[in-house]
């Protein structure tokens, strides 16, 4: 583990040789993309400055070690919001770009690298400043490239202007999966943000019942004036906290089923036009401090896949498979993707994506996920590498047919093959 103080120290590490090097952000990755057993893992806490906000261009230059949370706190008070916000704010900008993260607005705004106008990359051969129109090959190989083209040190992001720190939210509850998917196809385009939570633990006909949450940034006139004028925009989280010393494996099948039941019951059948603070809308999990402790020492695996718009049946198959095998998923998140980025390793593709959180333990889990890999690949879909820790390696090339483009870029910027991770070694990414 190394934390270089500046670009020169980072370059020295890249030139030092050894058993490989990979950058790591804030460690929220569910898989092994930011691990490098026997090699060097680079963190950038010393490269985390946020430069001046360019209000005319609506853009900001940040160093890659800065967290999305820090960027949001810096810009929100001045009426600017990150263009893409994943499920947690506790990610670095470098990590967000390397995974080409998406948010609830992907169907409208795409993933984060579409909003990057320029980035700086340290690779073994030297420093590269790239943009969509400047060495586009390297820029897009880096977008979603899981750190395998170099260490991102700086980026310029275009921001979204917002008028308030509130969201106008419509919540709808659906008895089954087909109904929620139909509603999303029919109405998602009317909202900037849309996501559905799906219950994969309910049995039989109720498998796939769902709560759909959609919203937009509230405009000034949507927010009633408060006494003493409007509070300046800010971020409030929930105040839940996971108590310490919980017994391990607290989240067993039973508690997960109970959680899913409660989440479903708690949601209104239909509530439209509700004002919600940004934090609650975007990062419900950040509101439960230390929520990852709920999973116990053996942890969990995430499985997120994407399939084309004509393959919604794969979502159905996945939900039915989990329900039938009684494999509990803590949260199953369903979303529609818009068109993907040009990055050869970027995950999102137009269609559907389903993300599952599965506690490690059930003996049938590994083979069931292998089976899902096959179903997803056969439908022309793919698995999200940022969350992966167990994909069948022989299916990678089917899921990411443009791997040779990444390999060509890697041969150019890293001929000695210094940049590698446990993920790249496990899946055999050249």
């Amino acid at each position: 583990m190394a934390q270089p103080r500046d670009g020169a120290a980072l370059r020295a590490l890249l030139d030092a040789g050894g058993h490989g090097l990979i950058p790591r952000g804030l460690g929220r990755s569910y898989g092994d993309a930011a691990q490098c057993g026997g090699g060097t893992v680079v963190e950038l806490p010393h490269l985390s400055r946020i430069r001046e906000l360019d209000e005319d261009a609506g853009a900001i230059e940040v160093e890659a070690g800065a967290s999305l949370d820090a960027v949001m706190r810096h810009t929100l008070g001045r009426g600017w919001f990150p263009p893409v916000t994943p499920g947690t704010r506790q990610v670095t900008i470098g990590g967000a770009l390397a995974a080409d993260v998406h948010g609830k607005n992907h169907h409208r705004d795409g993933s984060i690298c579409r909003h990057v106008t320029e980035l700086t990359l340290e690779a073994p051969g030297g420093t590269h400043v790239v943009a969509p129109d400047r060495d586009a090959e390297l820029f897009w190989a880096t977008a979603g490239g899981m750190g395998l083209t170099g260490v991102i040190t700086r980026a310029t992001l275009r921001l979204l202007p917002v008028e308030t720190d509130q969201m106008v939210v419509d919540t709808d509850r659906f008895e089954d999966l087909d109904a929620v998917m139909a509603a999303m196809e029919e109405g998602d385009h009317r909202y900037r943000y849309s996501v559905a939570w799906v219950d994969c633990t309910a049995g039989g006909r109720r498998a796939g019942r769902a709560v759909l949450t959609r919203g937009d940034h509230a405009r000034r006139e949507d927010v009633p004036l408060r006494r003493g004028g409007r509070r300046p925009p800010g971020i409030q989280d929930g105040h839940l906290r996971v108590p310490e010393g919980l017994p391990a494996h607290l989240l067993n099948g039973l508690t997960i089923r109970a959680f899913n039941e409660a989440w479903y019951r708690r949601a209104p059948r239909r509530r439209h036009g509700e004002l919600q603070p940004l934090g609650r809308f975007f990062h419900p999990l950040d509101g439960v401090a230390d929520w990852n402790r709920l999973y116990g020492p053996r942890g969990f695996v995430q499985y997120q896949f994407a399939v084309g718009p004509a393959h919604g049946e794969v979502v159905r198959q996945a939900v039915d498979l989990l329900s039938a095998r009684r494999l509990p998923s803590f949260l199953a998140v369903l979303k529609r993707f818009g068109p993907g980025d040009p990055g050869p390793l970027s995950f999102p593709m137009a269609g559907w994506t389903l993300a599952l959180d599965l506690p490690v333990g059930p003996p049938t889990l590994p083979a069931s996920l292998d089976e899902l890999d096959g179903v997803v690949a056969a439908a022309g879909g793919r698995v999200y590498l940022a969350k992966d820790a167990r994909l069948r390696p022989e299916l990678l090339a089917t899921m990411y047919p443009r791997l040779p483009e990444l390999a060509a870029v890697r041969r150019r910027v890293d001929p000695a093959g210094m940049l590698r991770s446990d993920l790249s070694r496990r899946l055999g990414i050249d």
Partner: protein
Amino acid sequence: MLDAFGQPQSIVVLGGTSDIAGAVVDRLCARRCRTVVLAGRDAERLAESAARAEEAGAERVAQVVVDATDVPGAAASVERCFAAAGDVGAGGDGNVDVVLVAVGVLSGREDELDAAHAARVAAVTYAWPVAAITRAAALLAEQGYGRIVVLSSVAGVRVRRANFVYGSAKAGLDAFARGLGDALQGTGVSVQVVRPGFVRTKMTEGMPAAPFATTADAVADVVVAGLGTPASVLWAPPVLRAVFAVLSRLPAAIWRRLPG
């Protein structure tokens, strides 16, 4: 690499012709394992085991003939195995994810008091594995990660008069492996001890089965599932943990009189 369930893509098996090793390799190759290095005494039986591994899904299989009575040569034998894992062809990353140690020779009642035989059992079942595991641990630590799975035996948990030479060697190996595991904390390398009960295999052919007798397949299931856990000791079948909690506390006079 090891995946989220501890499943390896490459394995070195010391004692690669044993029934338990074969059953483990079958299962690992049905999942993620593609590189298999088998080390054993008998070239002919190694070839059979290699064919079985290929049938199970291994893409790169190497065979290394080793002599487990040659204790000073153990370290060099392990180095040959690791080199073979790196050499067996394109596709693998050259690393060794798991080292399975299934080396040992049983002793029986009639030869327990034969000094030459006792020395041979002690060498093959204890001294050679200790030297080999020590070298493997160093190579894995240099690599930065890996798991060593050591097949111990309940025979070493409380040594019986019927096979006390073998039992004492397994007791020593078991203690060595647990101590090594503690010493390796923080290196990325972990050690897991598996204690099977009486297993019906080539090694125990013709012997009367003990209570809770199990099969190589059942032990292999325990080994494969155990890879996904950090447990330092596994029992096969798991019920033996409780059984031996009791047996270990039996008065010596009763223990001595137990059959077998």
